[in-house]
């Protein structure tokens, strides 16, 4: 903190933060001085304010390093590849899934459905029943996407022959991977199974992937995803539940390369149609962009900032920069949602997916104020969307100057979920998400919002204290 002089305040206009009795500030207000009343609550019993670790690490400085690395990241879409060839540790009998580690027995319906579907799609199993037996019989190794520099929306299933985007963080050289987005409704990532699902996946593998890959390979600079996300935030996206602008921007960015590298106009038209009809196509780029930005921020001693936040439909898990290999787990929450025709909350699976990487990286639900078009999720008015973002500033260590929100006077988005702030204020991260049907095979049925569960934050805070105090 910089040292000043008491005299510096002399002669300056006062602006007062009032902590406590409103009457104390009334007089100041009456004198025409700007006064900001806190909505103050006593801290939760037993939550200590942690500042300097026993070994002398200033937590704020450690956190500063973490957010510096995230802000400096330049996630860039550079190439595509097949999962088993490019994802570290991936093999022929491995399936990646969203969230913290989980066994087949504990997987929720949509994740099981997506695993079975993926095995059929791969040709590893002849049908869903066979797939279920294989999965239950231990023939398949399950591993979290996050253990493989990968992220996956909803069930987050990545099987060996799926094509994936390769996002490189140009600043740090690390990479992140994510599949291509299939669209909404009955799709694999929501637990959808059936011939139509596999057919679409096959088309994405045989047509979409080569077309996109060729185009990308003709772009030596790749596509700057940070720039696209920043622009999308100015066009009504928050990068999680709304990706319409991002998808459009992506098509614009890759358009000329697509035209130049493809011979068959009809194929090209189908590819463009597919992307255009799927407002969430860009989600599978905004997510690995976040992952690529966050990974270099892992492993900073003394930092209380989250670098991972993900759900597998059964558990909600987080990891801290200072303890990057340790998951803190709590039961996944219920989503407060809006549903597609014919579905209701009774059909909904618990919170699922790696897409909370967007909030972790400083956009998604935290940038709700930028996305007035989907404010119904937070209660209906743009003002409430603004409040939702303002509230998130309370628990985030910093603000991402690279991602600004016009309605907040171009203020940076909340960045760096600080487990200390979460515990001190009792404010839990507010997340945007899609909703899967709880049964295998059905698919996506809506979207909504929820808070992260408190328990994993409490556990992480306790472990952090144990390690450093």
């Amino acid at each position, binding site marked *: 903190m910089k040292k000043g002089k008491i005299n510096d*305040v002399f002669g300056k206009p006062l602006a007062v933060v009032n902590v406590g009795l409103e009457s*104390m500030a009334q007089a100041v207000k009456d004198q025409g001085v700007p006064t900001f009343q806190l909505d103050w609550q006593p801290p939760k019993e037993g939550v200590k304010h942690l500042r300097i670790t026993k070994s002398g690490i200033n937590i704020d400085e450690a956190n500063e390093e973490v957010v510096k690395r995230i802000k400096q990241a330049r996630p860039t879409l550079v190439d595509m590849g097949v999962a088993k060839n490019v994802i570290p540790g991936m093999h022929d009998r491995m399936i990646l899934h969203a969230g913290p580690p989980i066994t087949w027995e504990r997987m929720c319906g949509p994740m099981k459905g997506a695993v079975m579907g993926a095995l059929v799609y791969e040709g590893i199993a002849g049908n869903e029943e066979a797939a279920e037996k294989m999965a239950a019989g231990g023939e398949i190794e399950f591993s979290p996407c996050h253990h493989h520099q990968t992220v996956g929306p909803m069930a987050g299933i990545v099987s060996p022959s799926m094509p994936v985007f390769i996002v490189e963080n140009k600043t740090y050289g690390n990479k992140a991977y994510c599949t291509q987005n299939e669209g909404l409704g009955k799709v694999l990532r929501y637990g959808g199974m059936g011939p139509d699902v596999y057919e679409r996946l096959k088309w994405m593998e045989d047509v979409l992937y080569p077309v996109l890959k060729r185009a990308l390979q003709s772009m030596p600079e790749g596509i700057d995803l940070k720039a696209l996300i920043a622009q999308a935030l100015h066009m009504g996206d928050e990068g999680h539940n709304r990706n319409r602008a991002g998808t459009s921007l992506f098509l614009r960015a890759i358009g000329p390369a697509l035209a130049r590298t493809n011979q068959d106009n009809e194929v090209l038209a189908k590819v463009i149609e597919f992307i255009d009809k799927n407002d969430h196509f860009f989600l599978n780029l905004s997510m690995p962009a976040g992952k690529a930005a966050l990974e270099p921020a892992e492993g900073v001693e003394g930092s209380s900032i989250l670098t991972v936040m993900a759900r597998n439909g059964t558990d909600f898990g987080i990891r801290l920069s200072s303890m990057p290999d340790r998951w803190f787990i709590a039961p996944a929450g219920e989503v407060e949602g809006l549903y597609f025709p014919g579905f209701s909350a009774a059909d909904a699976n618990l919170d699922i997916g790696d897409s909370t990487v967007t909030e972790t990286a400083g956009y998604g639900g935290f940038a709700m104020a930028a996305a007035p078009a989907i404010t119904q999720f937070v209660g209906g008015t743009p003002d409430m969307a603004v409040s939702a973002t303002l509230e998130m500033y309370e628990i985030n260590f910093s603000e991402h100057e690279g991602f600004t929100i016009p309605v907040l006077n171009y203020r940076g988005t909340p960045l760096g979920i600080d487990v200390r702030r979460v515990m001190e204020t009792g404010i839990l991260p507010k997340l945007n998400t899609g909703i899967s049907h709880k049964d295998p095979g059905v698919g996506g049925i809506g979207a909504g919002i929820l808070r992260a569960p408190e328990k994993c934050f409490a556990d992480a805070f306790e472990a952090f204290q144990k390690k450093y105090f």
Partner: protein
Amino acid sequence: MSVKVLIKTSEYHDSVSLMLVARELTEFPGVEDASVVMGTEANKSLLEQAGLLTPEADATTPNDLIIAVKADNVVAEKALEEAEKILSKKSTVGGEGAEFLAKSVRGAVRSHPEANMAIISVAGRYAAEEAWEALFQGLHVLLFSDNVSLEDEIALKKFAAEHGLLLMGPGAGTAIINGVALGFANVVPAGSVGIVSAAGTGLQEVSTLLAKNGIGITQGIGTGGRDLKASVGGIMMLAGLQALQEDENTHYIVLIGKPPAPSVTQLVVDQVAKGSKPTVMCFMGGDVTVADGVKNAMAVRTLQEGGLLGAKLAGADLPDIDALIAGETADLKVQADELATTLSDGQRYLRGLFSGGTLCYESQVIWEELMSEPVLSNAPLNKAKTMEDSTRSEGHCTVDLGEEEFTVGRPHPMIDNDLRIRRIYQEAADPEVAVIMMDVVIGYGAHMDPASELGLAVQEAKAKAKAEGREVIVIASVTGTELDPQGLTRQAKALERYGLIVCPSNAAASRLAGMIVEKKAV
């Protein structure tokens, strides 16, 4: 059960709004299922799966809106009407729930980077943490809360001083920074006198005495009462003093407090000597020789002397202060002698009822010199003069009703007059009481019309005593200025109308009260 469909051609709504309408429709009594979607192929297939797709719905284009309801005919018709209403309803919410209040100091500063001062009044055990947070965010702090540990105070002040920040308090209710009254403070003019005070009402009394003599201030920095203890070492007094010494607008300085620990006195004197600005050290009842040998330092023993000397230094047209006070005292003596004649034989005692702790202290300093008998208090000059039971007066005594014993779970007597009113009746009913003396502190933070409430009580209490054949003398002074919201003259005149004798300073009121009972004692 049937499916009714309403098609609105070329009417676009975003999908989330539509899902919201659908949810409301589904909750409509008697509706089994409902859907409100644009007529895209994907949506039509969803409608089909849900059994909501009618031929007319199937014929729509992606630009048409489909509202489909599954219910009895009558209910379905009503539900469709409702859907139209919901869709056409413009958002009326907006303002409500829109204002977001930050939950933490840090959050407030992030949203309002211009913030530079925090006023903290949360319960003591949380106050230190909030003060730390404010300091870390680079805010100056007025820490109104009590019950902050000495260790916390010392650590906070050290940090603040090292970083050029004010940490005023704990227990600091008064400060005037850049002309803004923070907490309990008066509207005083801008001027050339800078004040650092370890006593809240001391700052109010001195700044208003300056104002009564046409002199204004630059800054009024509060330090909290414990600042001058040896353990705290006067950290804020010294930091504030140095800041004023370096402030180009401040030409004269007044320091206020109870006498500091000797080690702290030395530190303060040394710091005064480092500067050249004339500095009045108003450490009430303290040793005036501490200023000896420091050419720009003057030491006085009462707030009145401090205020008047400061005013004179700053150019007020005043004679020699000692002569001035001597003259005033002579006049008061005449008045005291006269008033004493109205008292009955058994009426001998003085009772002080204070809302301002510093004023209570100043009065005791004056009475100690003036009176032959001791005045006890719940906030005494020394422990030997402690009242046995502060809720029941005996002999000469003076009660600081702003002490914690009275304010736990109750508003401060500057804000709420009830406690003092009860005490006025209690004292006036005591046949041995001759004089009741009180302070009336106005300004920001204080009660909006203390004179009416206190005055009315005095009037009634006096009347009751009169009915029993006694004249009870009630003396007050008003700490305030004409510019205060309550108005100095308005308050003083009101008190006089109710039968109080109003003096121009707390010191004058104390002398008058003291001389009346002294006259009776002789």
